[in-house]
Every structure is written in structure tokens, then in C-alpha cells.
């Protein structure tokens, strides 16, 4: 394999990783601040993609579509927080898993009821489509480079938000001691709604961004959800830094594993068998990575030890 191809694959892994981070950031924030496992996070990803596809179809503007995705997912997030989620904060994880599992069913079939069973159309805007040539002669799609840039910008923004702003201070305080910030006069239920809506908006944005190069269809959120959980568990639940490291680790492992394992197996078996065995192992790889990390560090790479 040539170094150029390898470099391109590293970029692909990085791109997958930063999009996973945008998805996982909300999940890990909500867990860190409110102690809630939200399986319906994947549904918010789907809501974002559908809202973007609908608005892009009506107006033809990709930017408006992204705004719509942010707004729709944030609104859906705020709505379920007020109606359902806030009743779950003091429940055990089991109740949270069941209730948010129920929300997945409602969101998925509700979306299918409104938009039908056929996949929707959402595409990369003209000004971002096509490849560009990078130093070293790599032909790489401009849109994927944009995704990497947006993802890194969001990561930077989130770190700034948490370390520099008033909201960030409240969030950090909430992670450490809930009673204390209530005692300090912070409206905790409003804080929770804001944090939840913020996480939802990020998931919706990820849905719209990724939806442009994938298929916008019902159920698109679940596979991403599982991988996002893998990410935050590897990084340590509640840690934004952990989510970033975990996301990039998972993105690189998944991409490079899929490319390198079949090549590796070809060294000692015939092509077809190697391809089949290699891709079988590659599909298990991120779960093996996660199990390995947890066995080594039972609360993830950056998780608070219990």
C-alpha cells in the first residue's frame, strides 16, 4: 500500500472520528451533568437529517438546511426533556434505558408516518462538491475536508464554552456537586434543559452534515448511536476530552482496520478467504478495542474513577 493511500485513509478515519465526536459530545455532556443515559440521542441525529432534507428540498439552500437541523433537533430535545427526560434524572439507569428506548420507537415510527418509508434526498451543495488536490497529490473530497474543519471547530468551541463561559462553569459545577449549584441560586431545571437541547442540536447538526453524503432514512440513528456509546465509554463517560480522543481513536481504528486487516490476512491465506476473514474481524474491531480499554481502565481513558 502506497504512503499516499495510507495518508488518505488516515484523513478518512479522522473525518469519521470528528463527526462521531459531534454526535458523542451531547451524549457525554448529558451523562456528565445529569447522569442520564439517553438512547434516543440517535433519534435526534435522525431528526436533524430529516429537517435538513425537508428544508433543502423546499429552499435549495444548504445553509438554511443546517440551521433547520440545529433548530429542529434542539426543539425536539427541549420538548422531550421537559415532557419525559426530567422525570428520569433521579431514576436508576435501567429506567432511563427503557424510557429512552421507548422514545426511539416513537421517533422512528413517527418520522416514517410523516415522511413515508422512502429515503429522502439531501446532497452536498455545489460549492462544496468535488475533490481538491492536497499537498502530496492526494485527491480528497472538499466536503469531507469541510466536515473535519467543522468538527474541530465545534470541539474548540465546546472546550471554550466549558472553560470560559458562565454556562460552562455551571456545567462543571453540576458535574461535581448538584446540591451545591442549586444552593448557589442557579435555576437547575433550566440549566438541564439548556444542556440537553445543546447536545440535541449537536446531534442534529451531525445528522444533517453526514446525511448529505449518506442515506437519509428512518433508523439511520441507531448504528451511529451504538458507535457513539463506544466512543464515550472508551473516553470515559462525562469527559469532553475523552469523547474527542475516543472518537478519533474509534474513527481511525474502524477505517484503518477495515483496510489493513484484509491486507494482513492476505499474507498467509488466499485472497477471498482473507477478504472475508479480514472484514469479519474488522467489523468486530471497535468493540474489541472498547472491551480492551475497559479491561485495562474500567472507567475509560479519562473517566473519573469510582
Amino acid at each position, binding site marked *: 500500500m502506497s504512503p499516499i493511500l495510507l495518508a488518505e485513509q488516515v484523513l478518512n478515519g479522522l473525518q469519521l472520528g470528528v463527526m462521531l465526536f459531534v454526535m458523542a459530545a451531547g451524549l457525554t455532556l448529558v451523562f456528565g451533568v445529569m447522569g442520564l443515559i439517553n438512547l434516543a440521542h440517535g433519534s435526534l441525529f435522525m431528526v436533524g437529517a430529516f429537517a435538513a432534507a425537508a428544508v433543502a428540498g423546499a429552499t435549495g439552500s444548504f445553509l438554511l438546511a443546517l440551521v433547520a437541523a440545529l433548530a429542529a433537533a434542539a426543539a425536539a430535545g427541549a420538548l422531550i426533556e421537559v415532557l419525559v427526560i426530567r422525570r428520569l434524572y433521579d431514576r436508576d439507569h435501567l429506567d432511563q434505558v427503557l424510557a429512552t428506548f421507548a422514545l426511539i420507537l416513537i421517533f422512528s415510527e413517527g418520522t416514517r408516518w410523516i415522511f413515508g418509508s*422512502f429515503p429522502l434526498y439531501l*446532497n452536498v451543495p455545489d460549492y462544496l462538491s468535488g475533490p481538491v488536490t492536497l499537498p502530496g497529490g492526494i485527491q480528497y473530497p472538499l466536503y*469531507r475536508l469541510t466536515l473535519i474543519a467543522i468538527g474541530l471547530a465545534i470541539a474548540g468551541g465546546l472546550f471554550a464554552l466549558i472553560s470560559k463561559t458562565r454556562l460552562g462553569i455551571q456545567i462543571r459545577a453540576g458535574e461535581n456537586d448538584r446540591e451545591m449549584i442549586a444552593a448557589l441560586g442557579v435555576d437547575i431545571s433550566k440549566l438541564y434543559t439548556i444542556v440537553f437541547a445543546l447536545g440535541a442540536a449537536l446531534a442534529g447538526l451531525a445528522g444533517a452534515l453526514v446525511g448529505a453524503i*449518506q*442515506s437519509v432514512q428512518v*433508523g439511520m440513528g441507531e448504528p451511529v448511536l451504538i458507535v457513539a456509546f463506544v466512543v464515550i465509554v472508551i473516553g470515559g463517560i462525562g469527559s469532553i476530552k475523552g469523547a474527542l480522543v475516543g472518537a478519533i481513536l474509534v474513527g481511525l481504528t474502524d477505517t484503518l482496520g477495515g483496510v489493513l486487516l484484509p491486507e494482513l490476512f492476505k499474507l498467509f491465506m488466499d485472497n*477471498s478467504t482473507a477478504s472475508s476473514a479480514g472484514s469479519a474481524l474488522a467489523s468486530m474491531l471497535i468493540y474489541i478495542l472498547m472491551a480492551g480499554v475497559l479491561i485495562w481502565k474500567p472507567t475509560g481513558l479519562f473517566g473519573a474513577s469510582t
Partner: protein
Amino acid sequence: MKLRSLALVAALSALASGAYADSDGAKVKVGMITTLSGGGASLGIDARDGFMLAVKQSGNENIEVVIEDDQRKPDIAVQVADKMIQSEKVDVMTGLIFSNLAMAVVPSAVAQGKFYLSVNAGPSALAGKGCNPNYFSVAYQNDNLHEAAGAYAKEAGYKKSFILAPNYPAGVDSLTGYKRFYQGDLAGELLTKLGQTDYASEIAQIRASGADSVFFFLPGGMGISFLKQYADSGVDIPVVGPAFSFDQGILQAVGDAALGVVNTSQWGKDLDNAANAAFVETFQAEYDRLPSLYAAQGFDTANLLLSAMDKASVTDADAFRAALKAADFPSVRGKFKFNTNNHPIQNIYVREVIKEGDVYTNKIIGTALEDHGDAYAAECKM
């Protein structure tokens, strides 16, 4: 909406025009198990609508159709099949879209003496050693469209194909089917993850491989993702694939990325015969959308069944089986007959994706394989 009552209404509301008479008045109860909810629902809905359109047009009052959803889960499909056989007492079963569901239901249904007419799935296990006189595939044998793609690639003079499919039995079969007719070398062969949504790394490998053509089989959302990302990557090696990723239902979601792509199918809406013209027109009038391959297959399946009902009573299994095997119905595909293993012998066409006004659709541009059977018929002893 109650599905069962919908089916009943469709069956009863079609009042006989008078020309029709069943040979001895025996009723036929049909159990249709298909995917109506969750992922893949659009395929089942099309097959169902095509089937019910034919039933309605026939005006035959002796056919009753019970429709149930399999949720694309094999265990649900098996359970619904048990229910249809044990308590609904159906005579004929049909409707399954996905091969893995068909493998769960068909062997035991035909072992219990039921007829099964496949509207889509045609796994190789049921075409060769596992064939059964009561099982008819009205669509194709799973390898057929891939074989046609291979034949097209050979015809087009491709020498170095890059081929990819998901790592599951139907995916592996598709690559085997392509290689059966394609004669050139392979620039690469990849098995991707089932349900994969990002193909950046595969596309990078295609770009680096120096291939002169790409063959892919990625049904459903996987194909949409692949085509969009492929178009955006700037790689301009010609792509060929089976009809599934270019079907009416999903083409609109792929958009411009699919324009000009060559794909293989045993049907196209512009296929020139009277039955097809009438089908395309009435389907649009009834459901307000263009018919898909699955709708065409459902429509043919119902007409095959109706033609057998005209000739024989379902209570006389041998006569009914012979009547099915005769395939004496006007197929929307034109020529159609059954091979020794009850799988079709038919033409497989080459289509190209075009845009008609605002709608993406396919145009037939040639014939890949004429009167094509399948590779497993010789293994079938019945």
C-alpha cells in the same frame, strides 16, 4: 389503517365483470408476509401494492389475500407463517422480500404442502439442491442480475474490474455471480460491513487500484451512501450494478449521483409490451407514483396465481402445480417461462439512469442476457 380489512376490501370491491369463472369455484386463500414497517418497508409496500393491483384488476372474487408485516425479522416471519398455516389455513404464500427471511419460512411452508410464490427473494439454496416443486420464484434467482452485470462488463470490453459487496451470503453470491460471466482481471475485491454508511476508504482503494470499471452490490441505504460519496470523490471510473440501487423508490434519494449509471434488471418501465404499458399506467393512476421493480414483480406474481386459478383448483395440488408451471399469463417482462427448478428463464436488460423532467428513472439501452436461466438448475432434482 387496518391492513387485513384493506386486503378484504380490495378483494371484494372488485366486482366480477362477468367474463371470469373459476374452473370449479374453489376459493384460494393467499397469505402475504412482507416487510411493511422499519427499514426496508418501501420494498414490501411496493410488492404488496403491485400484487393487490393485479388482484383488483382481475375482478376475481375467489381470491382472498391476508397481509401481515414481518418487520424484516426472521423470527417474526416464521411466527406469522405459522399463524397463516395453522389458523388462517392459507393455500398459497407469498410476499417475502429478503432472502434470509425466505430461508426461514419457505422450506418449512412447502414441507407442509403449501405453495410459495416468491415476489423477490431467490436464494441459491432454494434453486439447487434445496428446490421444491411447490416453490416458484417469479422474480429471479439471486445471482441473475449480477451475472448480467458481468456479461455487460465483458461486452463493454472491461479488463480490470473492482468489485465490492457487503460481507454476508447474498453479497458473496453477488460477487460470484459477476465473476461467472465477467472474463477480465480483478483490480480488487472487497467485502464491506453490512449496514455500512461510509465508503470513503473503499473509494480511496478504488481510486488507487487502477481499475477500468466498478461493480457493486449494496442494497438499500448502503447503495445510496456509496453512490453519493462516489460521485463526490471525483473518481470517474464507470460503475455497473444490479437494479436494486437504482430502483424507482430510492433513485430520488440518490439524485444526480446516479445519472448515467448502468444497471441490470429483468424489467423496466419502458419495456415495450402491452401488459407493461397497461401496468405502468394503472399503477400510477392507482397509487400516484411510478412503479418499481418490486411492484412489477408483485404484479406478475398475482397474475401468475390468477392464471393458475383459471385452469385448476388449488385442492388438486398436482393440477394446480402444473398450471403454475405453465406460466400462462401476460408478464410485464414480455417473455417469461419457468426452468426445471421453477425459477425464471427470461431476458435481463441493461438500463441507464436518466432524468425525465424532475423525476429520475431508468431507460433500457440493451439486453445483457437472453432467455437466461440460472447456474443451479442442474443440481435440482425434482
